[in-house]
């Protein structure tokens, strides 16, 4: 069993894994940045009183939340070509991750905004601040602190989700494991190595999330 664990093969394949790791890293960073923009816009529409903005935002968020990411990936992967859109797999994958995480991020931000005490809003109203000023000076700064830990949590989810891109042959970390398995048939070595790298990313992000949670000093003021 594990006694036969072949480290030599892993070292032999290390360049492949490192390339995969780099791809996973880049895909995740680009996707999370795009998802953050998508999420902010979707949230702004979601809480807006204008119905033409609000209802499409609700539909987007609920559809994403109630269907699996893998189905969303296949939808774009098999669906975009039928629309005549031909883009590389990696872009399809990033698009899917962006749309998927964007919906969750929209809800995270909305929860952050809702967590701010209503009295804060009333205090702002009473001193004559307008909607934009209240958002900018009172609500968003307080919401931000509450939002950062779950946003980092979403980043963890996104890194792991990016593994599904291996199924549309994007050359990322999990794909490296699949390639090594098909060439050498040493799945134990291949997938435990893959798992090890994911764990490394996970522990870094988790430590960040816990640190940011402790840094939320302002919440104690109330």
């Amino acid at each position, binding site marked *: 069993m594990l006694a036969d664990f072949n480290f030599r093969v892993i070292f032999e394949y290390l360049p492949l894994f490192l390339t995969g790791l780099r791809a996973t890293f880049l895909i995740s960073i680009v996707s999370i940045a795009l998802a953050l923009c998508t999420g902010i816009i979707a949230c702004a529409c979601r809480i807006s009183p204008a119905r033409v903005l609000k209802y499409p935002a609700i539909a987007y968020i609920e559809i994403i939340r109630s269907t699996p990411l893998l189905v969303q990936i296949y939808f774009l992967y098999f669906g975009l070509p039928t629309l005549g859109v031909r883009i590389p797999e990696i872009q399809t994958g990033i698009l899917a991750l962006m749309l998927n995480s964007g919906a969750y991020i929209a809800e995270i931000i909305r929860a952050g905004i809702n967590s701010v005490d209503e009295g804060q809003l*009333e205090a702002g109203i*009473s*001193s*004559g601040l307008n909607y934009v000023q209240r958002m900018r*000076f009172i609500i968003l700064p307080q919401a931000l602190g509450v939002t950062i830990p779950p946003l980092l949590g979403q980043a963890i989810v996104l890194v792991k989700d990016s593994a599904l891109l291996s199924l549309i042959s994007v050359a990322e970390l999990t794909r490296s494991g699949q390639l090594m398995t098909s060439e050498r048939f040493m799945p134990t070595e291949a997938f435990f190595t893959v798992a090890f790298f994911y764990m490394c990313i996970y522990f870094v992000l988790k430590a960040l999330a816990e640190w940011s949670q402790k840094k939320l*000093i*302002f*919440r104690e*003021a109330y």
Partner: protein
Amino acid sequence: MENMIEFKNVHKWYGKLHVLNDINLEISRGEVLVICGPSGSGKSTLIRCINRLEEIQKGEIVVNNTPVHDKTVNLTRLREDIGFVFQQFHLYPHMTVLQNITLAPVNVKKMSRKKAEAIAMEKLEQVGLTDKSGAYPGQLSGGQQQRVAIARGLAMSPEIMLFDEPTSALDPEMIGEVLDVMVNLVSEGMTMCVVTHEMGFAKKVADRVVFMDEGKIVETGKPDEFFDNPKTERAESFISMILTH
């Protein structure tokens, strides 16, 4: 005397609950009015209508010659003239004391930061907290937070100050420091509406006491008369209740 605030046949409902029932009230410039009554009597709602934190369904409220609930009214302009102090302080926890006070002057009155800070320090001196200008609300006691909240209201140089149970959330030993600040305000000729059960404060500085119950103004009178010789039975039982409390 000139009327600063005027309620004319004001009604308000929350669903079926008639929270304000035919309110008629005139408050003149420089007057100090204390509003008391059992919880749920509508007293907080009454003063929250003055700066339109609450909407009304019937009647009219005129503040400083402006009809508050008119659709065309410039609410920002109106609220600049009205300072509001909440029971729970509602200081902005992510800002220092100084930032709390200067936020509205800088962004609503478009004052320069320097000038706003000078005014803020002046107001902090008035409430006796100049040394706390750099502190965050979380580092202050309840009494200190409420004094900062008063300074925040004063920084807009309002003509009217509204207080919604300003001492109810405070530990007993801190009530005095807040009331002292309010008493000093009275001597400056500020028009004030105070929802409170602090009888000592009312007797000392109030020009009139309004007693509310079930959404109605039941009794109005001079503080001494009201507390020592209430005319209605409801007021009498209320007073005996806060005395034994």
